[in-house]
């Protein structure tokens, strides 16, 4: 039981960090970013390239991933999403754009980084073993703690910084925020960059444990959407709760249901359908949007 909880918490921390970026973009711009998983994958590959190919320390690689993705996010917002949002009132236009960006990034990743699974050497060796009741490699503990630290930093930034307050104002009421002098275009770009940076940072963190490959983008986006749906679209606390709930469900399901084959996600999806039928706005979302 202890092992299940620890596995769930570890999965939850990384999932929450992935979901945060997705929900930030949704709350600021009403964009469902289907390319979020691809941004995560690029973060992993940048970390791999800087760390393994260029031989730089892991922390430099991780910062490189965050910075690169922030730049990519800002470019995507400024040159793709902003014009489409300005010119089209239909929400599906941005969804189609996001899907197109996902396909484009997949092709770009293949060209730049190749098709192979990549990984970096363990950043910490050794395994914590508490009487075989809890077994957890030290690098997973470190990555889990870092994920929690980044979540706390993100919340603090959003809560207390001027930029964070402006973005929250935008998320609550774009027109009112604009009337109060908030530069919508600037803060939308910062928000997109921040979200992409979060995705890239998770990719950079996890490449040391799970490795990274071209095919990870789509499934990562799907999981991120599930977390956001569970927690409530556009709500930051909801994304965190959704991440931890999904992590815990996955951990429990894989252990308890293992004898029945691979039905964990079948059960999770079925439960999610029932849950959304009862509470379509998710745990912490508002019924009006």
């Amino acid at each position, binding site marked *: 039981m202890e092992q299940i909880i620890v596995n769930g918490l570890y999965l939850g921390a990384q999932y929450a960090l992935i979901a945060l970026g997705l929900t930030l973009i949704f709350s600021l711009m009403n964009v469902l970013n289907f390319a979020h998983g691809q941004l995560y994958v690029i973060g992993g590959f940048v970390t791999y390239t800087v760390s393994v190919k260029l031989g730089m320390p892991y922390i430099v690689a991780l910062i490189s991933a965050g910075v690169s993705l922030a730049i990519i996010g800002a470019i995507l917002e400024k040159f793709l999403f902003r014009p489409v949002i300005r010119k089209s009132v239909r929400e599906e236009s941005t969804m189609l754009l996001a899907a197109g960006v996902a396909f484009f990034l997949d092709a770009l990743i293949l060209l730049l980084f190749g098709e192979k*699974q990549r*990984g970096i050497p363990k950043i910490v060796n050794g395994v914590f073993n508490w009487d075989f009741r809890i077994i957890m490699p030290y690098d997973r503990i470190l990555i889990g703690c870092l994920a929690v630290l980044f979540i706390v930093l993100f919340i603090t930034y959003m809560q207390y910084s001027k930029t964070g307050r402006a973005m929250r104002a935008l998320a609550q009421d774009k027109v009112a925020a604009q009337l109060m002098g908030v530069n919508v275009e600037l803060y939308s770009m910062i928000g997109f960059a921040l979200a992409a940076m979060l995705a890239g940072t998770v990719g950079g963190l996890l490449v040391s*444990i799970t490795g990274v490959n071209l095919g990870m983008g789509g499934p990562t986006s799907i999981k991120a959407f599930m977390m956001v749906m569970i927690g409530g679209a556009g709500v930051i606390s909801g994304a965190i709760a959704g991440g931890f709930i999904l992590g815990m469900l996955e951990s429990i399901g894989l252990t308890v249901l293992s*004898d029945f084959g691979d039905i964990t996600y079948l059960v999770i999806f079925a439960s999610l359908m029932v849950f959304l039928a009862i509470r379509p706005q998710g745990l912490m979302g508002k019924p009006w949007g």
Partner: protein
Amino acid sequence: MRKLTTLAGAATLAAGVAFSAMTAQAANEVLKIGFVGVTSGPAAAWGTSNVRSMQTRAEWINEMGGVKIGNTTYDVEIVTFDDQKDPKRAIAGMEKMAKEGIHYVVGPNVDDGAAAVRPVAEQNDIIYFPYAFPKELYTAPASNAVLGMIANYQSGPAIYKYLRDNKGVKKVAFVAANESDPLSQRDGGVAAAKALGLDVVSSNVTYQVDTTDFTPVLTPVLQKRPDLLVLSGVAPANAPQLIRSARELGYQGLISTETAQDATVLKEGAGDLANGFISVGGASTPEIASEKMKEFVTRYTKMFGEYNDESNTKVYALEYILETMKANPKAIDDVNEFKKTINTLSVPNIYMKGDSKLKYVGNSSFGQKRQIFVPMVVNEYRNGAFETLFIAEVD
């Protein structure tokens, strides 16, 4: 001055015409060979090594002046299609090959894709070389598919027997991705293990192909304390993570698979934790590789930046297609002639030392010759490279 210009123009024209005529005379005809397989996603290493092997060999052949089939010399052109491991796309890929008039295709790389393209191949006179294991593709009445590698039901029993006899393995556990290929390989492996008298302690646990954390997946399996953990049909992208998770959970037994793997991927993903991992390897170990094989590896590495160990096997399919056509030039556009020649082909294997031959096999497994002959090399991963554990043959 005008006269001089006219003269120069005429000379240039004449030279141009002469050059065009020479070029036309020197240019070879083009022989298109198709590839339909997975070159993106977690299993991309399988198809990419396939297509890159074909491209490397084609460029090499063209550089040497082309391949002579009958009285005609051809440049080899590889026409590729990424099926993204999706059977529907594999069908579209095979239809594209048919539209281009291609009769010989390498791939698809996985079971469901290979099964899906069968009707298209048979209706359009295409002989295809899948890297997939369903027996019905190779047994009569099917006749257009030729297995391009060793199947798991051929290598699995050999590996388990070796490990039972030499490493004292008694209890086996199987883990597979929740996909048709790995699941069918797992079922084949379970049957083979039971037939050898091994105790199968776990075979139900499966994982989603997009799983990134295998610790929760493996925890219940390893609680059964197997001597051997079989990763059935494991994709190269998943193998290092599964190995790493198993070792980090304290598992000290043996780990094996019947699929080919990539040493670099294992090194990067699992490091020393992958030491001792057993997999089916390429068909040319350092002990048996010829100078041509070494040149192939050099050329491949030069073309694509790094070599993929799987290509030791995948160099063969194109070679078999060309050698069969050379042996019977009518086969170039008549697959029935190709099928006839399958039964008799025996030419030197340029990739192996000694007097090894390229020949078709498969009588024991399929009741007809629908498999290319490559040595069954079983490898053990050790410190970033594969070492040969043992070599066997399939008849």
